[in-house]
């Protein structure tokens, strides 16, 4: 091997080791596609409840009774809450599976310093966002729910990009731009939510998959 080739290999090795030791790089594009698909299915299932074609309460009598008292636990009696919870769980689990498979292929342990660092930095904006959303629902500020989801999730992604794949930053920018446009057209929050969590995830996942994982 020539000295030039050797130097080039060494530099590439250095770059790879720097990335591997400081960033969580096993995140699979297929995880994005899976999470996006879950979000779109969730949105389709939720549509008739959001737009009043179906009764929002799982148990109408108990729901209406609680709604009169104005107690927050009324949310547990709505279809929307359960659809949202189920969609979230399905998205996280399916995203996890594809990333787990990729980490196996790369021979990188899934749980380690880089994964922990990523988790903490994603959790900060998401937990604060979650608390804020609860307050929005209590205040009955329904129009702000979709843009608030997009803003906190977008910020979480921009933050995450420093601890994982750089391209997450652009997915984050996408969510933030959608959120800002959504603030101009408040009544369409449901559609902006579906575009952000559904379409953007799928587009991002497909791009990442073709760029790094397609064989």
């Amino acid at each position, binding site marked *: 091997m020539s000295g*030039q080739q050797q130097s080039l290999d*060494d530099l590439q090795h*250095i770059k790879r*080791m720097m990335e591997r*030791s*400081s960033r969580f790089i096993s995140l699979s594009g297929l995880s994005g596609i899976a999470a996006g698909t879950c979000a779109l299915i969730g949105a389709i299932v939720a549509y008739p409840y959001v737009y009043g074609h179906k009764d929002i309460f799982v148990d109408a009598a108990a729901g209406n009774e609680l709604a009169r008292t104005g107690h927050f636990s009324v949310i547990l009696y709505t279809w929307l809450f359960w659809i949202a919870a189920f969609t979230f769980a399905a998205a996280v689990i399916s995203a996890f599976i594809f990333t787990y498979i990729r980490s196996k292929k790369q021979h990188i342990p899934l749980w380690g310093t880089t994964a922990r660092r990523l988790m903490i930095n994603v959790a900060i904006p998401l937990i604060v966002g979650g608390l804020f959303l609860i307050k929005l629902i209590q205040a009955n500020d329904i129009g702000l729910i979709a843009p608030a989801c997009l803003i906190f999730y977008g910020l979480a992604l921009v933050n995450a990009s420093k601890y994982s794949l750089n391209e997450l930053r652009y997915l984050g920018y996408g969510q933030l731009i959608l959120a800002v446009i959504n603030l101009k057209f408040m009544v369409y929050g449901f559609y902006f939510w579906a575009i952000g969590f559904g379409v953007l995830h799928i587009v991002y996942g497909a791009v990442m998959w073709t760029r790094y994982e397609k064989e």
Partner: protein
Amino acid sequence: MINPIENLNKLFDSRIRLGIMSALMVNADVSFNDLKELLTITDGNLASHLKALEENGIIKVQKGFIGRKTNTTYLATKTGEKAFRAHIEALEKMIRSTK
């Protein structure tokens, strides 16, 4: 003309040592176990490379505890960081010189 090979540091003349230094350059400190996972080598092999780097003042050892378990972490010294940067520059020069 200066021969760029002269600037290549003999201490970094191994893939494992390059890997160790790469990790220490981008992290404040790295544990023994994380280095082992990163480089997929045995304890003994890693320990001998770490020892060589430590004896030359390239890296520092920190012994601490997580609960009751010992946790040994490593970090690059100022000298080590400088030497590694010079090594990377020398590698880049090698590539350019033959173009």
